[in-house]
């Protein structure tokens, strides 16, 4: 079995069989992570560059760990300044890295479309680790893995994505992936944070968190990203928490079976109350562990394709 595309640019258009294969493969690697020796020789001799044009801690560490567990050689290239400001064009930077003979590039960038662009200027397998407010496919996959781990299925599950959907790459990847796998996807947030016409992606829109909680089995709660000007779209974090924050009270009142996901890092007291962040309904740290396994699966499947 192998994937139908040699890159992972997003979950839009990725067939169900591919997603299933990644999730199944991840399950094998998840077991490896529980062993005393957590390393397999699968990608020995492969060189992977982590090209991070935007600050990232957890995604980069997760990828790096996944690469090391697979015995690949890894190189990190991190910069928070755009190539434009630095004087060297992005294309030149990539060509330089390419000239050093690398097999795979994991890329994060402020601009949507950069992973697609990379496929045109590089021969390496490209993995999108987040492009602007477009997609973050490995996050979408690890969210799906975590949900499936909890429920044993994705088909027919009611999942609501809560928060600044309009400015979230996690939201889009979740929507595309979950829809393909047959889940019923909805979004919830203040209208300023829901893109116009999102219904045409086949998702339901809630503007009241209480309703969203009562009618869904899973909430994937997004981080309110002040660094993405979230402050312009809501009057205050306090008001956001009051009307959209997930609290124990709300869980008790509306749905005691609900499962809470969060891509991290959490703003405690904003999108989640501390009680919920540490409470029994969330699977946030499982997501982090699963993230390594899912990334191992993606790297393995792409890195061993012929």
């Amino acid at each position: 079995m192998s994937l139908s595309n040699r890159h992972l640019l997003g979950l839009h258009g990725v067939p169900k069989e591919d997603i299933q294969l990644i999730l199944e493969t991840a399950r094998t690697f998840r077991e490896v992570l529980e062993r005393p020796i957590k390393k397999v020789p699968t990608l020995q001799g492969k060189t992977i560059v982590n090209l991070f044009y935007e600050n990232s801690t957890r995604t980069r560490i997760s990828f790096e760990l996944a690469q090391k567990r697979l015995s690949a050689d890894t190189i990190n290239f991190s910069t928070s300044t755009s190539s434009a400001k630095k004087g060297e064009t992005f294309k030149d930077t990539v060509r330089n890295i390419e000239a050093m003979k690398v097999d795979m590039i994991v890329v994060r960038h402020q601009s949507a479309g950069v992973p697609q662009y990379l496929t045109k200027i590089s021969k390496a397998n490209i993995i999108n680790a987040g492009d602007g407010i477009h997609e973050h496919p490995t996050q979408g996959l690890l969210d799906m893995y975590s949900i499936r781990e909890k429920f044993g299925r994705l088909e027919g599950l009611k999942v609501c994505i809560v928060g600044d959907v309009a400015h979230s790459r996690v939201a889009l990847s979740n929507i595309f992936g979950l829809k393909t796998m047959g889940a019923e996807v909805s979004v919830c947030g203040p209208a300023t944070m829901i893109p116009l016409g999102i219904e045409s992606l086949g998702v339901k829109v809630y503007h009241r968190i209480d309703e969203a909680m009562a009618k869904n089995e899973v909430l994937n709660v997004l981080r309110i990203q002040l660094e993405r000007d979230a402050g312009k779209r809501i009057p205050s974090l306090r008001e956001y928490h009051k009307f959209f924050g997930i609290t124990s009270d709300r869980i008790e009142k509306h749905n005691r079976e609900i499962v809470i996901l969060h891509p991290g890092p959490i703003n405690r007291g904003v999108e989640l109350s501390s009680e919920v962040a540490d409470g029994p309904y969330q699977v946030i740290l499982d997501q982090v562990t699963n993230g390594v396994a899912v990334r191992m699966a993606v790297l393995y499947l792409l890195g061993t394709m012929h």
Partner: protein
Amino acid sequence: MKIILKQVRLLNPEQKLDEKNDLLIEDGTIKKIGGLTETDFKSSQVLELENKICSPGFFDMHVHLREPGREDEETVETGSNAAAAGGFTGVACLPNTNPDIDSAEVVRFIKEKSKDHLVDVFPIAAATLGRKGEALSPMYELFEAGAVAFSDDGTVIKNAGILRNALEYSRNFGTPIIEHCEDESLSDGAMNEGYTSTLLGLAGIPNVAEDIIVMRDIMMAEFIGGKVHIAHISSKNSVELVRQAKKKGIKVTAEATPHHFTLTDESVKTYDTNYKMNPPLRTQEDVDAIRLGLKDGTIDCIASDHAPHAIEEKEMEFIFAPNGILGLETSVGLAITELVQKKILSLMQLVEKFAINPRKILNIHVPQIKVGEKANLSIIDPSMIWTVDVSKFKSKSKNSPFDQRLLTGKSIAVINNNKMFYEDKFVTI
């Protein structure tokens, strides 16, 4: 030198002229229409033009020539060459150069640069100093130096009070204010806002960012009585606003670009920065509205918004790449392919949009096809099928999304200022 345009279809809506005839040009002047003798034919260069059309020279009223300041991207000369190759005998160039065209010296500099060329270049000067929207530019002086209109293009005149003053002051000499309609508080994005921008994860620029300014400007034109020209109209509602304003007799005119009547925001799916422009490519509904606006006369003319950019600037991450594409060398082909072939415009209307209306808007003499008149002509083959090849462009830049596109309709020759551009060469006639 004598040139004969043999059996060409002469078209000029201004003269209600539509006839097939022979035309003799001697020393750059139209000497005879019909009645050519054996001697005429023997002593002239004869262009066989069966099934071709000849009209007053085409004029592109929205061109960025980049000189002074970015001569690496385009110069007055290379831009004029591109215009001649594209079928134009005149262009108006926008003032967002470096320095801006906001002093008489820069107007004279551009006029000087273009004085020996086939293509007439008419500078459009900045409406405000440095296009900052704060203080009026020396408009009268600029007008005297040769500016034909005023615009802060690239940006809108944000302050309505300043717009009022610019519009009022321009009444002294009857020039239009050309507005780049964009409410910048609504337009912090990289493409049209809608389904496709959501899908692509790019921040959107909504139609309403344009509509609000179009409405403001129309109301101001109604109040002041000056002339407002809407540059590169792109949204459905804006077209309707202009249509209603014209019905009320308000002095507003509008232009549309070939890319806005040809492409939709779906093209951005490749993240090719040659599809990044401002205003952005809109939806099919908007494209249809622009086509209808051109057909019913709401939109007066076609202008390319020719915007050359260096390769290294355009080959950038989508959100960082500059806006704009080349237009001069594909404009006529796109208009014939998308509008004439699809029966939206007749060839006569095409001549109106390309040759007549832009000059009328800018108060420039419209050349006639009659004996004794200086020859200022475009000769077009409306059925030639050709493939766009960016590498053969006369323009110094290469940023066109239409490379390798198959088009119908191409310029064969242009004649103006005692010069002819024919078979890829300039010759003095």
